[in-house]
Each structure stands twice: as structure tokens, then as C-alpha cells.
């Protein structure tokens, strides 16, 4: 028997996630006390470090761009009923596609080479995710496990390629040759300088616009389009999909490919927009943050943007914090991230019974 009563929308969409987030931050505060620092002072430093001046905002937005993309990647797979933990590996391999295109097409004008490099990132990321998708669809292997395994395979592959193949000749540092400047994605700082906002040397770039466009596209695709409808049907109930003439295998492969492509776009922000060369480990765990972002954002682009901003602020503010408070290291941000996943994801129903007791009163009869 289904639950007859439902919580009001504002409770479901704002209060409940708010309580979860609040508890995660409260516990983070306790850890700060454990480290021997004042949590309120830490919060002040963190907020200032993230939003206090133009360059800080620029960095916050730069990190947020990464998290929007990896958050969307996790979310689209969720809608199709799969848990893609492989965003990290997909982004990494996406960087390979982007680098090959950027190095190979550096002689073309940017208007041509940039879109092709972006496409290269999406294509390689998508194909890397298609492997687990295909394995699930055709052979029934569990996506969670295969995507984890593919992360390790990606790391090994990329290390080999960077160290042995793509490394700039005559150099010891494991990174590729720098790209031609025509392929660099323009930064937003000069653009926003016109409006009087000084972003300093913050690497936030056009990829932010791309990420926001992906959000709009995501919403239209998932809730307004027929393929999106079919994807959600298959994600909710495979038998219902088969009944409705929707092949779940094809949906899985499509969803995983889109998911991997979105994760692959992380390389556009990190490499094409900021580092301009392929660097070992450029994904920096952002693929895993996508899980937290998607869970907190409840797999909706609007929520994902908000959650990405929060995590962007944590990352940027966190590094300032680590600088000012010697007892707090940057790893503290990772702790907070873990706590958010715990409370927003695994313990999302913690407060539900209490809220239901408050907002739903028992009725008699049926």
C-alpha cells in the first residue's frame, strides 16, 4: 500500500535537504573544534575566502563549473536507474580526447578547433562510460562495480600515455606539450571586467556558460522530451519499460554515454580553460564530488547548480582557510564532502519520520 499522505513540497524540497545539510555542517564544525580551532571564525574565513573579493568569486565559479558537470553526469545516470561512480575515470579519458584534438588541430582557428576539442572530450568520456553501459546492457554486469574498476584502468592507461607517449620531449615532468593559444578557451575575467567586476587571475572561463547550457539542456531532455521520458521509465522500472516497448539496454547505453560525455567536459574547464596541457591527475577527485552534488541537488539541474556553488565555495574558501588556520588542511573540505554525501544521500530519510509526524496527521478509515 502506497503512502497516502505526502509532505508539502517546500518541506520535501527545502526543509528536508536543508536539515540534512545543516547536520553535515554541524558535524564538520565539531571536527574543527576537535582540531582546536574556532568553528565560527573558520566559517567567517571560509565565506570570505570564497566570496569576499573578485578573484575569490572567480575561483569559486571555476570549481563550481567542474561540479555542475560531474553532478549532471551522476544525475543523468541516476534517472536511468544507475549509479555511475566512474565520473573520475571518464573525465580523465575525456582529457585524452580533448588533448589529442587540441594538439592535432592547433593550427586551425579557434572557432573550429575549440568545438572539436570539446567534442573530443565528450566523445572519449562518453565512450569510456559506454563500456560499463554496454556490459550492463548485454552481459548484466553491475554498473557500480564496473565503473569503479574502469576508474583504475583509466588511471593506469593515462599514466602510461602521459609518461611514455604524450610527454613533452626532453622533459621529466609528466605532462603534455602546451596547446596552441588559439585553442585556449577564453577566460571570463576580461569579459566581466567591463561590468566592473574584477576576477583577478581566476581561471573561470567560457566553460561555465557551457555548463549552464548543459543544465538547461538536461532539464529539457529529462522532463520534456520523449527520449528523456523513456529514460526515466527504464530507470524506475525495467519491466514497465519492456512493456512500453522501450528497450532498457539501449536506454542504459544512451544514459551512460551522456553521463560520460558530461563528465568528460570537466576536461574542457580544467585543461582547455585553465591548464592548457594534459597533466597527470588533473581530475583531482572532482568526479567523486559529482556524487555529493547530484545527491544534494536531488538530481535536478537547479539543485545541482546550488550544490555546485556550495562545493565550489568550500573548495576555494577551504584553501584560503588552510592558509590562514595552520591546523586546518585542505583535506577538511574532503571531510565535509563525505559528511554531505552521508547525510544528504545515505541518511536522507533521517528526519522524514519526524517531519511526517509534524505535517501529516493520521486520518481514520481509508
Amino acid at each position: 500500500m502506497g503512502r497516502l499522505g505526502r509532505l508539502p513540497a517546500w518541506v520535501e524540497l527545502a526543509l528536508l535537504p536543508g536539515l540534512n545539510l545543516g547536520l553535515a555542517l554541524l558535524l564538520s564544525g565539531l571536527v574543527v573544534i576537535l582540531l582546536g580551532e574556532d568553528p565560527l571564525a573558520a566559517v567567517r574565513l571560509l565565506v570570505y575566502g570564497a566570496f569576499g573579493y573578485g578573484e575569490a568569486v572567480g575561483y569559486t565559479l571555476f570549481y563550481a563549473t567542474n561540479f555542475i558537470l560531474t553532478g549532471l553526469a551522476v544525475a543523468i545516470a541516476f534517472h536511468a536507474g544507475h549509479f555511475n561512480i566512474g565520473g573520475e575515470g571518464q573525465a580523465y579519458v575525456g582529457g585524452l580526447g580533448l588533448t589529442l584534438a587540441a594538439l592535432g588541430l592547433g593550427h586551425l582557428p579557434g572557432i573550429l578547433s575549440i568545438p572539436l576539442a570539446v567534442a573530443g572530450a565528450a566523445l572519449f568520456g562518453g565512450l569510456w562510460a559506454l563500456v560499463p553501459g554496454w556490459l550492463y546492457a548485454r552481459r548484466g554486469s553491475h554498473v557500480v562495480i564496473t565503473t569503479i574498476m574502469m576508474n583504475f584502468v583509466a588511471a593506469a592507461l593515462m599514466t602510461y600515455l602521459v609518461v611514455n607517449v604524450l610527454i613533452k620531449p626532453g622533459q621529466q615532468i609528466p605532462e603534455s606539450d602546451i596547446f596552441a593559444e588559439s585553442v585556449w578557451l577564453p577566460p571570463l575575467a576580461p569579459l566581466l571586467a567591463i561590468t566592473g567586476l574584477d576576477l583577478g587571475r581566476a581561471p573561470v572561463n567560457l566553460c561555465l556558460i557551457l555548463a549552464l547550457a548543459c543544465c538547461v539542456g538536461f532539464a529539457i531532455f529529462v522532463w520534456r522530451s520523449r527520449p528523456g521520458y523513456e529514460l526515466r521509465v527504464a530507470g524506475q522500472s525495467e519491466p514497465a519499460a519492456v512493456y512500453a516497448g522501450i528497450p532498457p539496454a539501449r536506454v542504459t547505453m544512451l544514459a551512460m554515454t551522456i553521463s560520460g560525455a558530461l563528465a568528460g567536459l570537466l576536461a574542457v574547464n580544467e585543461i582547455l580553460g585553465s591548464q592548457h596541457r594534459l597533466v597527470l591527475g588533473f581530475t583531482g577527485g572532482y568526479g567523486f564530488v559529482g556524487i555529493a552534488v547530484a545527491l544534494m541537488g536531488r538530481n535536478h539541474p537547479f539543485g545541482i547548480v546550488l550544490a555546485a556553488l556550495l562545493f565550489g565555495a568550500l573548495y576555494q574558501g577551504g584553501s584560503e582557510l588552510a592558509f590562514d588556520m595552520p591546523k586546518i588542511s585542505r583535506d577538511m573540505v574532503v571531510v565535509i564532502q563525505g559528511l554531505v554525501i552521508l547525510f544528504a544521500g545515505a541518511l536522507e530519510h533521517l528526519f522524514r519520520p519526524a517531519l511526517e509526524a509534524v505535517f501529516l496527521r493520521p486520518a481514520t478509515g481509508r
Partner: protein
Amino acid sequence: MDGLWLQALLLTDSTVRLATPLVFCALAGLFSERAGVVNIALEGKMLGGAFAAAAAAAVTGSAWIGLLAGIGFACALALVHGFATITHRGEQVVSGVAINIMVAGLGPTLADAWFGQAGRIPLPGASARFAPIELPGAAALAHVPVLGSVYAEVVSGHNLLVYAAVLAVPTVAWLVGRTRFGLRLRAVGESPAAVDTAGVSVEALRYRALLVAGVLCGLAGAYLSIAQNAGFIRDMTAGKGYLALAALIFGKWRPVPAVLACLLFALADAVQVRLQGTPLPGVGTIPTQLIQAVPYLLTILLLAGFVGRAVAPRALGQPYVKER
């Protein structure tokens, strides 16, 4: 010939060392997954165990107190895992990921704040560490061909936790196969409703399974930080928890095959360390990264049914809700 024999002995020896944490972790995974709880958090619990063991050993100078602390912290993480997945029926994979990420940050953060060593915890002296144990007669027998050298090089000279891992294998196999706890454990991963209606608490049983897994993860972590190595460094598990999970799946959720898979993966690792760019006759240099990827590739192939078929416990991953 003699040189080759010695090479083989040394390879076997390092395989045993590398397999030890995998064996503990895979057996830990076995308890929780046979009880129906997906344990992607092996990595985090092991890392947490390694951190706590090193921290306690560094402060007290006692390896034994370190071991207890490692086990205690891993069990505390197991309780968090259980609270989320059993009591609140949260998504099991998500809570596992949460624990892994939280611990990955917590270890270096606390190490920094408490020991001021950039995310590391070094051990103060020999007593804070489990030292290799020379078995009786090892030196005397070392010259006896074959058996003697095997005894001296491979059997003797490991630390206590390696021998504990060896003992753990038959113990776990017996526990799962021949005892009341084992019977209930196997049942609850297949059909929790049958266990419930038989008058046995599903929740208590799953908590117990997670706690046993916590003890084993603590042993694995302590092995890393206060036995195999002398201290904690950030991310020192380096994916071993996932590798153990892969071994568990590879062993089809049964104790002895899972341990054999651990040995296989450890062997690949040992070979990779030994080769390190040395060209093989007729093959040329094998990239170390390829050998590193082998266990993961094998697991993917197994899951895809290209090498045998692995059937998971039926209730794996599903929180138990009384039907209504």
C-alpha cells in the same frame, strides 16, 4: 637454476605480504555482502584502521594498542555504515562512498593537526610496530634444498598479522559453513524475510556482520600502517579495498576462492614490482601500468560472464523493509 629458484621464493614471499591486507578485506567484504550489505566502504574502513592504528601506536609506542585502536575505529565506521544502511535503510553504495571520502579527508586532516607532519604519522620506535617473526629453526633449515629454503624464505619471517591472516581463512570458512551465525548470515543475504519470520532479528544480524567486517578491516589497516610500513601516509590503501571487493566477486562470495583471487591479484602486484621495466625475453618490456590494470580488467571480464559467472547474494544491496 639456483637464481631462478631464489627469484621464485622471493616472489612468493612478497605475494604473501601483499596479499595479507587483501585477504583481511575480502573476508570482511564476505561477511557484510553475504549478509546483504554492499560493502564499497572496505577502502575507507581499512584506511581509517590504518590511521587510528598509526596514531595510537605513535602516541603510546605500543603496537598492540595501535592494533586495538585500528580495529576500534574501523568498527566505529562500521556502526555509522550500519546506522545509515540498516537502521535508516539508506542507499548502501552511497553510504559506502560517503565513508570512503570522509575518511580520505579525515586521516590527513587529523594527522596534520595532531602530528604536524603534512598528513603523515611516523612511528617512534620498533615497539610501535609488529616486527617479523623468525620461526624456530628457520636459519638452520635454510640450507636444506627446496623444503628448507621454502620454510626459511616464505613461511618464516613474517609479522604476526600475516600469520593471523593465514589463520583467518579456515576460521572464516568454518564460521560461515558450520555455525549458527554462518547459517543465519547466509540466509539473511538471500531472504531476510525468511530470517525475520523465523524469529531472528535481521537488523541485529546485519549489524553483527558489519562489525565482524569492521574488525577485519581494522586488521587490514593496522597491517598497512604498523606492520608492513612504519607509519600512516595519506591514501595509503591506494585502492586495495576496491581490489579486495573485486577479489570477493571474483571468488563468487565464497571464502576460499576469494582468498585465492587475493593471492592472484597480489601475485600480479608482486610481478609488477619485480619487473619494473625489465624486458622479458621474447616479449619485451611490459608496461607496469598494464600489470597494475590486470586485476581490474579480470574482474570486469568476470562480471561480464566472459570468465565464469558470479551470482551475488539475492538480497544484496536491498534494505530490508517488511512488505506491506
